[in-house]
C-alpha cells in the first residue's frame, strides 16, 4: 500500500511507533555530525541540515528548506543496534561443587530504525547472512524486534556509490515502510510505501492521502536525479578481477598512505568481526565473557604459530579490501560493500576504495 503523508503524518508515525513500545532510533545532529540515537519525536531530527562528504572530510551546513532527510548516510552505521559493540556472552561462577554458567537472555527491546537509507537496509540483509546461519541469539533477537522505516535518498552524499552497487538510492526490499521526502518551494510531504504486513497496518493507522500519478513521477524523478549525482561508481562484480593480484604494486602504494587506524571497519555497516575477552572479579569467583567489535587492521587480529599472520599494513589492508569486495562473494554470494561511502569519508587520509580496487583489478603494469 502507498500513501502520501504530511510532515505531521510522519511525526505521527514516530508517535505511533513509540506508542507500540518501540524505541525509535533516528539520525540526530550531534558533535558536528549526523549520528544515530534514540529520539522521542520527529523534532529531534536534523531538520534543514545537510552534509558535505568527501575523502577524509565531513562538514555539516544549513540548507534553505526544512528537509528532515537532507543529509546522507549518518557517520555511524546502524549495526550497533542489532550487533552491539559489547555483548555479555556468559557469566560463570565458581561454587564448591563446580562451576555454574549462565547466559543472559538476548536483549530484544522492540525498536524502529527510522530514516535508514537503502544502502544500510542492504547492509542489514548482509549481516543476516552472517549472523542468522548459524544463529547468533543476540543478533537474531534484536533484528526480529526491529521495525524498518527506510528513506529514499534524494541527496546522495559526496562519497556515495550505491547506484552502481545496485543498493540504492531507492529502497527496494527489506523495509516495513519506505519514505521519500518531497521538499520543494511548493510542497513538503512524504510518499510512503509499505513493504510488509506490519508496515501496511502501520500506514493504515496514519492520516494520509492516496498518491497521484504525479506524486509517483516526482518520487521516481528524485531517485533518478540522485543516482545521476553520484560521482563514484563500483560494479559489484568488477573487483573479482583482483582476486589473484596479491602482489600488485598498488598494495604498497595504498599501504604507504593507510594508517591502519581501523576507522573504515568501525564505520562499515557490514564489517562484523569480533573478539572475546574474559574478565574475572578480584576474588576469582565470578568470571564474565564479553564479545566486542574487532578489526582486521589490528596487528594481533590473525595469528598463526603464535605470531601475527599479517604483520604489514599492506597485508592487512589487502585482507580488508579483498574480503569486502572479492572473497565475500565466495562466502555469501554478494559483495560485502553496499556503497555507503563511509569508509571513504571517515578515512583520515581519504583512501577511496573505489579508486584502489579499480587500480588493483587492472593487471599490474597494465595501461590505466
Amino acid at each position, binding site marked *: 500500500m502507498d500513501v502520501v503523508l504530511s510532515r505531521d503524518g510522519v511525526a505521527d508515525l514516530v508517535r505511533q511507533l513509540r506508542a507500540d513500545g518501540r524505541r525509535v532510533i533516528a539520525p540526530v545532529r550531534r558533535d558536528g555530525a549526523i549520528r544515530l540515537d534514540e529520539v522521542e519525536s520527529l523534532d529531534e531530527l536534523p531538520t534543514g541540515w545537510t552534509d558535505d562528504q568527501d575523502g577524509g572530510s565531513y562538514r555539516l551546513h544549513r540548507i534553505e528548506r526544512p528537509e528532515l532527510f537532507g543529509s546522507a548516510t549518518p557517520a555511524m552505521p546502524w549495526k550497533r543496534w542489532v550487533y552491539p559493540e559489547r555483548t555479555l556472552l*556468559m557469566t560463570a561462577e565458581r561454587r564448591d561443587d563446580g*562451576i555454574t554458567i549462565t547466559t543472559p537472555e538476548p536483549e530484544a527491546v522492540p525498536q524502529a530504525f527510522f530514516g535508514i537509507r537503502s544502502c544500510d537496509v542492504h547492509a542489514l540483509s548482509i549481516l543476516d547472512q552472517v*549472523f542468522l546461519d548459524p544463529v547468533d541469539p543476540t543478533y537474531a533477537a534484536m533484528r526480529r524486534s526491529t521495525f524498518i522505516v527506510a528513506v529514499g535518498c534524494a541527496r546522495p552524499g559526496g562519497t556515495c556509490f550505491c547506484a552502481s552497487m545496485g543498493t540504492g538510492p531507492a529502497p527496494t526490499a527489506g523495509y516495513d515502510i519506505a519514505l521519500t521526502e518531497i521538499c520543494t518551494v511548493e510542497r513538503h510531504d512524504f510518499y510512503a510505501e509499505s513493504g510488509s504486513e506490519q508496515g501496511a497496518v502501520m500506514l493504515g493507522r496514519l492520516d494520509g492521502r492516496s498518491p497521484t500519478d504525479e506524486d509517483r513521477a516526482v518520487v521516481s524523478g528524485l531517485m533518478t536525479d540522485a543516482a545521476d549525482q553520484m560521482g563514484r561508481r563500483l560494479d559489484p562484480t568488477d573487483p573479482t578481477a583482483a582476486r589473484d593480484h*596479491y602482489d600488485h604494486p598498488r598494495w604498497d602504494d595504498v599501504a604507504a598512505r593507510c594508517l591502519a587506524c581501523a576507522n573504515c571497519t568501525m564505520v562499515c555497516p557490514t564489517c*562484523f568481526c569480533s573478539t572475546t575477552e574474559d574478565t574475572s572479579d578480584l576474588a576469582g569467583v565470578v568470571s564474565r565473557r564479553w564479545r566486542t567489535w574487532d578489526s582486521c587492521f589490528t596487528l594481533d587480529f*590473525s595469528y598463526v604459530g603464535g605470531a601475527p*599472520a599479517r604483520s604489514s599494513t599492506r*597485508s592487512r589492508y589487502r585482507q580488508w579490501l579483498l574480503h569486502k569486495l572479492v*572473497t565475500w562473494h565466495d562466502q555469501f554470494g554478494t559483495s560485502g560493500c553496499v556503497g555507503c561511502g563511509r569508509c571513504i569519508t571517515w578515512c583520515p587520509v581519504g583512501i577511496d576504495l573505489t579508486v584502489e580496487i579499480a587500480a588493483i583489478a587492472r593487471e599490474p603494469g597494465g595501461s590505466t
Partner: protein
Amino acid sequence: MVPIAYRVEWRRQDLPDTVTLGIAPVEAPLATPTPGQFMMVWAFGVGEVPLSVSGIGEDGRLEHTVRNVGAVTAALSRARPGEIVGVRGPYGAGWDLDRATGRDLLIVAGGLGLAPLRPAMLEALAERHRFGRMALLVGARDPQSLLYTEELEQWRGRFDIEVEVTVDAAPPSWRGDVGVVTKLLGRAPVDYAGATAIVCGPEVMMRFVAIGLTDAGVPPHEIWLSMERNMRCGIGHCGHCQLGPEFICKDGPVLSWTRMEKPMMVRER
C-alpha cells in the same frame, strides 16, 4: 557459544611445554567429534582457545594435547585432575577417512601435528582392512620433542603399517633417522598416485610436505592439511580465522591442497 563443564581426569606431561589432558563431561556430553575436528576449550576467568582433539574416548571423554604458548594454554596446562574446564564444539570439518577407503593412506605429522592426527590414526588402524598400504611419517625437531613415543613404538611394531620417524638433529644415541620430514615422502612404500595423504604440522612444514607429496605423485585433491589460525567463535562469526575465502573454523580446519595451495603460497595471507 557457551561451554559446558568437563572435569580433568588425568594429566600427562608429554614434553616440557606440552601436556595432555584427559577430560570427561560432568553431565551430558557434547556430540562426539570426528578425527580432525576441534573443540573450544575454556579456562575459568582466562579465556578460550581452539584445541584439536587428540583422543576420543568412552562416554564423551576427550583428550587434548596442549602446548603452553599463551595465557589460556598456560592455565589449561596447569589444570590438575578434578579441576573443571569448559568445552564447546565439536567444530569444523575433519579428515574424511571414508573417502580414502580402498586407497593407500599416508599420514604425515610434524611436531605437535601428531596430536590431531592421532584419532585418525587410531580409527584407520581399528579398521585397517579398509585401506591399502599405510604409512605414518613423523618429523620432529629432536628426539626429546617427539609426542606419544610409547604409542609410536607400538605402531612401529605392527606389520601392517610402515612407521618412519625423522628428526632435524639428534645425539648419537638416537637410532632413528635424521633429516627433514620431506625426505621420508618418496621413501614410504605406498602407491603415491593411489594414496590419500593427511597432514598436520606447522604451516611451513605442511607447505613443503604438500609440494613433496605432489612431486611424488599424490593427486592434489588427495592431500588434506589441517590448517591453523586463531579462532574466537568456531562458527564463522568472529572473522579471525579467514584465509582467503575460507573460514578455517567451519570450512576447515581440514582442507585440501587444491584449495590451500594458492593462499599458502602468498605471504601474509
